């Protein structure tokens, strides 16, 4: 049954803006993104919003719906009461370009800082042999669609913009964890995880896990295991002593430029 939904959509440029009320038709089976497209087609032709796949796979349509970070294309209208006002705002953590479109380049900058996959140079292309059990853990992290909802919700940067230079955010700490767990990767990123990517800022309150549309257990399977690995490298006196006795060599990656 079609009905008219009451929307409040954040409209504005470069930070300045306000919530504007609209009333838009909703049909059965539609998602929030459909309603925004109808709004764009019928009443607000200049509404800016980002989308691509409409299937929860491209990570473009991240927004906040009634204050919760969500994908517009994966949020069914049927989960809301018909008389409820839907407040739709851009992701709060990133600078807004216009309306619902934010500038997420922070994330690309962080991504570039992570030292890439570093296999043993002696292994020639075609010689890698890996077993499923060895790559299984990191495969979960590769489901990420880079919607950056986790980055957006993480209070470390959401509520404290000044932490952005020091903190890479859950998505990229998860990338570090993925490489740390990679069976063919030789580099040791534990020092930079803590010192350059700010793992210590995370207080494991699990909001990243709560919002991830791919259902990745970011906190339990990436961040906490990474914290435990960092403890093993930086804070555990017994592991340190053991390393001294066995003369263990760490292959630390270079520090992130501009951080030291």
């Amino acid at each position, binding site marked *: 049954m079609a009905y008219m939904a009451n929307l409040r959509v*954040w409209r*504005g*440029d*470069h*930070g*300045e*803006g306000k919530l504007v009320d609209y009333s838009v038709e909703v049909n059965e089976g539609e998602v929030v993104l459909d309603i925004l497209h109808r709004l764009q087609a019928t009443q607000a032709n200049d509404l800016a919003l980002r989308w691509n796949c409409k299937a929860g796979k491209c990570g473009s349509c991240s927004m*906040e719906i*009634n*204050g*919760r*970070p969500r994908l517009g294309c994966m949020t069914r209208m049927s989960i809301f009461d018909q008389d409820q006002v839907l*407040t739709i*705002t851009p992701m*709060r953590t990133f*600078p*807004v*370009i216009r309306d619902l479109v934010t*500038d997420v*380049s922070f994330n690309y900058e962080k991504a*570039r800082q992570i030292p890439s996959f570093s296999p043993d140079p002696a292994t020639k292309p075609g010689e890698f042999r890996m*077993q499923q*059990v*060895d790559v*299984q853990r990191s495969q979960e992290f590769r489901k990420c669609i880079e919607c950056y909802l986790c980055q957006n*919700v993480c*209070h*470390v940067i*959401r*509520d*404290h*913009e000044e*932490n952005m230079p*020091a903190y890479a955010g859950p998505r990229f700490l998860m990338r570090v964890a993925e490489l740390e767990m*990679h*069976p063919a990767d030789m580099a040791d990123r534990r020092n930079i995880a*803590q010192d350059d990517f*700010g*793992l*210590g*800022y*995370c*207080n*494991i*309150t*699990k*909001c990243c896990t*709560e*919002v991830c549309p791919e259902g990745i257990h970011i906190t*339990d399977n990436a961040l*906490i*295991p990474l*914290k*435990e*690995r*960092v*403890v*093993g490298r930086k*804070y*555990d006196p017994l592991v340190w002593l053991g390393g001294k006795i066995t003369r263990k060599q760490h292959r630390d990656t270079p520090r992130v430029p501009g951080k030291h």
Partner: protein
Amino acid sequence: MTQVTQGPAKTRAQIQAKTLRTDPWYRSPRVTATGLTIIVLYLLFASFANTDYIFGSYISPLYSPCLATTCTPSDSSFFLVPWLTWLTPAIIIIGGPLGFRFTCYYYRKAYYRSFWRSPAACAVAEPHARYRGESRLPLIIQNVHRYFFWIAIAFNIFLTYDAVVAFKNPYTGAWGHFGVGTLMLVVNAILLWIYSVSCHACRHITGGRLKHFSKHPVRYKAWTVISRLNNYHMQFAWVSLTWVTLTDLYIRLAAAGVFGHGRWI
């Protein structure tokens, strides 16, 4: 470096509301705070009480192992610590289990959210002007958790011993007894083991730290089992904590004579 084109002004959407969430996000931190407060207050009271913690072969988990020379004699009283006698035997050992729970990844989440409110719920602004989290003192100390894990294992061994001793009749000392107290102490030990084994530090130590699971099939298997338990770590944290509380309460009431002299005690 890749060339980055000059973007628009870098300003976030200026939205004043501390959250636009319309669901009852405040409920869960409130429930957590209330639950923790009630249990912690009771446990503090019980730890300072210094009476009624032993009933025949039963000993309250808060007072075991009973190390002080001032302990009520029992199978779990070791009379090893002659100093600090102005403290109760529970306070002398409370650091172990308390440290374990306090630095537990789940409890950290629970009290950071419900008491410190950073954040109280997702996408709800926290009240603090600055935030450094666990990146420096004091909270960087949370990284000792794995040491408390080993301490907790030692405690579990004592509490398992207590559960075995609870098969003695609290009145006569004869073996082969099975009463409510026995059940409480046996379940208590089992729950504490499950809680400790599902710990993230334990998960790391057994297998999480490895790069090649295929080279360590036994540790991989252990890691798989622990990972499965670890999914419910929060539930185990609550159930085991509640059970410790109830066990102490039961033994306290029995020792105080509230239940009279009964076969099923």
